């Protein structure tokens, strides 16, 4: 009679042999995911520790559900929104610590810098936080994935909807740097294409703090809509001050890049009625509610689209590694592009050849304080923008990888 101990040991040995086989293809013996984000600065609320938590959840859920034969590790770092820190850290992670993929990367300048390092060293980059379209156009490469959103989708969502709803004359308040310019350009194009008119723009220094003079210009222009082509504190300050100067509600504000954390910081009074485009709202379906509540338990804040996207993208990545049995960049990338994404974050999401993950986006409107029944009950979903419409068509892509 074979003793129980022997059986257990034999099984363990067999399993080890099997997993050793899988591990032999995984460099360094484990899959290492680097989360490079803003942990303490302007964007730490919309990404930051929440993105780290989302990654942790994805890894734990993956191991629990899929029972892979390999180990998964996570390292995190704060790039402080600085391209040089991000680039340096990514380089160090890849050269010294065998990190297989660098992820998150809120703040376009950090994303662009790391994309270059990753291409040089042949590692994957999975971006959720950064916004600007050059990531999948002029600066595209074949090791990068731009997952959650971009300025085109935002412009196409918000600007289009607002113009269609009757906001025909626009005035832009733009953060005076590449991201702001891109957001303004994309939005202006959408406005004009939909029968609207841009009556003026004003650029404010980045970061700004007092927008009264710029807002007064916007007011003097008489435009129906003031498009806020900025983000973070700039947006929230501008909104506050517009209310103060009696600019709203006579003229309406379009927050071209806003997150639920911004609405939470400002409160519903100054933001009510604003349109914005998002890739995720926690209260949309039962699935999103379930996942978001789990997130909320640990983070004490509802997740932004960046954080939800981070979970989804990491899970998708790990599934691809398991399916291919390796962490080799080219093979995993091919698998990630081949496999559609179907989870609480996206249905029939697809990663295109330019690295762009296309999925449905949602046009939402911020609720009036009276209509908000419970904490974080901030949005009414006005429309779903299907994936094919939301993102820049491949035919218009300026990415050198796309052959026309």
């Amino acid at each position, binding site marked *: 009679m074979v003793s129980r101990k022997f059986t257990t040991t034999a099984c363990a040995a067999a399993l080890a042999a099997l997993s050793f086989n899988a591990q032999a293809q995984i460099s360094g013996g484990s899959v290492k995911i680097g989360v490079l984000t803003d942990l303490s600065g302007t964007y*730490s609320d919309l990404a930051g520790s929440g993105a780290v938590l989302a990654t942790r959840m994805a890894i734990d859920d993956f191991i629990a559900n899929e029972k892979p034969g390999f180990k998964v590790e996570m390292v995190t770092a704060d790039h402080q929104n600085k391209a040089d820190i991000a680039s340096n850290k990514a380089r160090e992670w890849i050269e010294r610590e065998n990190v297989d993929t660098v992820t998150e990367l809120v703040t376009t300048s950090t994303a662009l810098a790391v994309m270059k390092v990753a291409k040089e060293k042949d590692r994957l980059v999975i971006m959720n936080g950064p916004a600007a379209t050059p990531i999948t156009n002029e600066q595209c490469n074949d090791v990068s994935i731009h997952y959650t959103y971009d300025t085109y989708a935002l412009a196409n969502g918000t600007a289009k909807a607002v113009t269609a709803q009757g906001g025909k004359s626009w005035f832009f308040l733009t953060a005076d740097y590449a991201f702001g310019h891109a957001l303004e350009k994309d939005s202006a194009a959408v406005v004009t294409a939909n029968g609207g008119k841009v009556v003026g723009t004003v650029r404010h220094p980045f970061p700004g*703090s007092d927008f009264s003079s710029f807002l*007064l210009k916007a007011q003097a222009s008489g435009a129906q809509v003031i498009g806020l082509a900025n983000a973070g*504190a700039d947006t929230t300050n501008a909104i506050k001050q517009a209310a*103060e*100067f*009696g600019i709203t509600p006579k003229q309406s504000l379009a927050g071209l890049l806003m997150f639920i954390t911004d609405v939470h*910081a400002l409160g519903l009074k100054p933001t009510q009625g604003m349109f914005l485009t998002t890739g995720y709202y926690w209260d949309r379906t039962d699935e999103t509610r379930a996942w978001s509540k789990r997130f909320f338990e640990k983070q004490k804040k509802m997740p932004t689209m960046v954080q939800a996207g981070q979970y989804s993208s990491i899970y998708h990545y790990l599934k691809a590694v398991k399916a291919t049995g390796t962490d080799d960049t080219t093979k995993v990338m091919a698998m990630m592009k081949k496999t559609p994404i179907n989870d609480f974050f996206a249905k029939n999401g697809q990663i295109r050849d330019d690295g762009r993950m296309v999925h449905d986006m949602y046009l939402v409107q911020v609720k009036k304080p009276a209509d908000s029944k419970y904490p974080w009950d901030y949005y009414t979903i006005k429309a779903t923008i299907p994936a094919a419409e939301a993102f820049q068509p491949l035919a218009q892509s300026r990415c050198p990888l796309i052959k026309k």
Partner: protein
Amino acid sequence: MEIFGIPTALLGSQLLVGLINGSFYAILSLGLAIIFGLLNIINFCHGAQYMMGAFVAWIALTRFGINYWVALIAAPLIVGIVGVLIERLMLRRLYKLDHLYGLLLTFGLALIFEGIFRDQFGISGESYEVPEALTGGVNLGFMFLPIYRGWVIVASLIVCFGTWYMIERTKLGAYLRAGTENSQMVQALGINVPLLITFTYGYGVALAAFAGVLAAPIFQVNPLMGSNLIIVVFAVVVIGGMGSIMGSILTGLGLGLVEGMTKVFYPEASSVVVFVIMVIVLLVRPAGLFGKS
């Protein structure tokens, strides 16, 4: 009607907004000028102290339900006491050394305060409601002026000119001025000069905190609000003449107006026009516009 192609209404409103910003510059540079003029210390943590004033007001409101009006007095007091501690425990040791050490110490303190608040509160910024009595606005014809902003101008002018009066026209001010020029003589006359100096630093810091409370409903209360502002305020003080009380008030207001004008014609340069002026002034009139060499 248009001037230089800009409608007068827009010009008028921009100048008024510039005056509001100028009020902040005036209070902050007044505090700096007092501290430098009377103590010869460049208080690099002035911006951090301004930020702390705003945060004390915010914490008082959200955690303890203490309203704006009480905070206007309480925050400057509390932050002023912190200032007193700084002076007593640290600055005091540096008076005999090169002035640059005072600058470096306060620079280090600014880093500490900002880092702590950043760690505790993040950077998204906290919202502070305009107090009930000051909500709403007044239609001036060429613009809609929020009452609160009008209040800021009034409050700053009162505080600034009140301080000026105290320093230039009262006995206390006379002691302060004499004390820094010849402390031994003044002490021999029975005045406690070290105490005066401590009070002066505390008062300068309190002014910064007062400006912070005034700023809270206008700007988002966030740990970086001071460091963005402080460099500009330094330039203001240097332009005005580093020891001149009236100079800093007038220059602060004046520069607010200049910035407002720049925003109308060439907005991107509005963050740098102060420095250009500073360089020009220093070349042409090194002691500053109102300074005495």
